């Protein structure tokens, strides 16, 4: 599993605070990037389908009907066919997107929040405190991420919330590392030193001066984690460690539809294909964001 993003190359830190115009430039850059537009478009579509599933979906995601099981794509009334319990696959895929995206995005968001906070704190305070925090986190680095996720959800037992906890724990140390390294670079800059001399409180220095500089690189890093998180999460569900039936989730659907691969290959392939497409879109968008934000260099 691709839970192994390389750490970002030493992040460029500008002396000036990022201004509103910087983000405007980034945004303009992104809008001009066809890859970003395509990936963003696909993602928006998938997200919208998931979010608005209760209003858009043509059927009930749980209503089973054995006489209609495993209908092929394009059957009348079932645009994408039906699953092994005769449930409308399009509906299941739309609802499935909710949990799959949730499991992909929530751990990254949580890790982004928690990791940035810890990283900022460690980097800003520095010294022994920093060392202790970073050494403790090094331990988590000693675990291959899939193994860590599997170990935690294995011991806690299967379930959505346990998977979320496991995945968050996997990503936090990585985010902390990025946040800490940037904070240390920023801290040494002259104007921060000046602010500190002038008696500004640590909190306000962090909030006003450091945070702005740190958020960018951490944000870039976190976007790169989205696809990793998606794939890891669906993998957990595939193993039976994530979402429990009958909740629709792409990884779980991929598993239960496997046996239809001979009788109805396209229907069986769809959940996997969706994970794949979403994950590619996340990756391409992350690449575009990274290069768009690089303009500062």
């Amino acid at each position, binding site marked *: 599993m691709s839970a192994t993003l390389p750490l970002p190359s030493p992040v460029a830190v500008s002396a000036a605070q990022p201004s509103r115009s910087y983000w405007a430039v980034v945004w303009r850059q992104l809008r001009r990037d066809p890859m970003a537009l395509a990936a963003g478009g696909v993602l928006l579509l998938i997200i919208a389908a998931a979010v608005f599933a209760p209003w858009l979906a043509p059927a009930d995601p749980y209503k089973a009907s054995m006489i209609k099981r495993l209908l092929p794509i394009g059957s009348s009334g079932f645009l994408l066919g039906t699953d092994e319990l005769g449930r409308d696959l399009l509906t299941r895929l739309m609802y499935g997107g909710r949990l799959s995206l949730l499991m992909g995005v929530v751990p990254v968001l949580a890790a982004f929040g928690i990791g940035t906070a810890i990283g900022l704190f460690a980097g800003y305070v520095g010294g022994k405190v920093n060392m202790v925090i970073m050494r403790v986190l090094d331990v988590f680095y000693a675990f291959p*991420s899939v193994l860590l996720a599997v170990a935690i959800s*294995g011991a806690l037992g299967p379930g959505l919330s346990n998977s979320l906890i496991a995945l968050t724990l996997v990503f936090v140390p990585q985010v902390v590392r990025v946040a800490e390294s940037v904070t240390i670079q920023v801290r040494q800059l002259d104007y921060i030193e000046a602010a500190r001399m002038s008696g500004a409180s640590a909190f306000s220095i962090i909030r006003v001066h450091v945070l702005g500089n740190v958020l960018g690189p951490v944000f870039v890093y976190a976007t790169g984690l989205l696809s990793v998180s998606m794939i890891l999460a669906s*993998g957990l569900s595939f193993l039976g460690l994530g979402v429990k039936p009958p909740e629709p989730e792409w990884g779980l659907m991929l598993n239960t539809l496997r046996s239809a691969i001979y009788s109805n290959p396209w229907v069986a392939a769809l959940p996997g294909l969706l*994970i794949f497409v979403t994950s*590619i879109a996340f990756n391409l968008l992350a690449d575009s964001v990274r290069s768009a934000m690089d303009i500062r260099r």
Partner: protein
Amino acid sequence: MFAYILKRLIYAIPIALSVTVVSFILVYLAPGDPLSAIAPADAPEEVIIALRSAYGLDQPVPVQYGLWLMRAVQGDLGLSIATGREVTSEVMRAVGNTLLLAGFAALIGVIAGCLFGALAGYRHGSWIDRIATALSVIGVSIPHYWLGLVLTILFSIWRPWFPAMGAGPGGSSEWLWDLEHFRYLVLPAVTLSVIPMGIITRTVRALVADMLGQEFVSALRARGLSGVAVFRHVAKNTAPTVLAVAGLQIGYLMGGSILVETVFAWPGTGFLLNTAIFQRDIPLLQGTILVLCMFFVVLNLLVDILQPMIDPRMGRA
């Protein structure tokens, strides 16, 4: 150099210890009484007493950890709840199989990754570059257990070229280095290799493109240095990073092969983990995770030690 190695070694010790702590704590993460996590529900009194004293469950937690660690260091990881067999022997057998799979996958990944990456870097912006980049994005984006299913259908059912499951016709204990056995390795290893392939392609591409863009390379070229010489120069400078990335990848693959092993019924650690989880076999889970992580720690250490040795930029002290 020696001092550096020593420093890395010393640094690895607390990490290794902490790994043991995390593995130990799994017993407490498991819901319910810790004893129920390590003893079969129908265990007779003697077994329960033996386990209680082995883990020292009436003692304070640090003492319990100490007791457990002492045994673990001596190679005693306890007995599996489900089978009653020694965890150590179960895990070691599985580790061998996983190492075979992960090593071979990493090999494919590194070779393909270096090839694609170098080509893409050399022909930056060309169609080769685009294809290689696309492949690398696909590699890191594809849910590889799904890829495994698709490959099985294509190359072991539709075109029955490779076996669909297992580690050799006689099981892993009769593994031989011949063509017949090798066929069993192909599909799972290829499936597993797409991730390192993707990541290494990206890394090499960026490094090579960066290197070729630098002024001194153009200077070398301008001085009429042959392509081979330039290539050698580039290779020398990218090797350390590639080694570091590749080393980590083997570690990640060893931990990450759980899904592929499940799909291909490959009798490695992933298969063992999966069974351990659903049997709620905590000693087995503990042991497998501990051994895998130790591998990872050692691998990291090796990379840390080897990397500066082959890095021309670092002075050979």
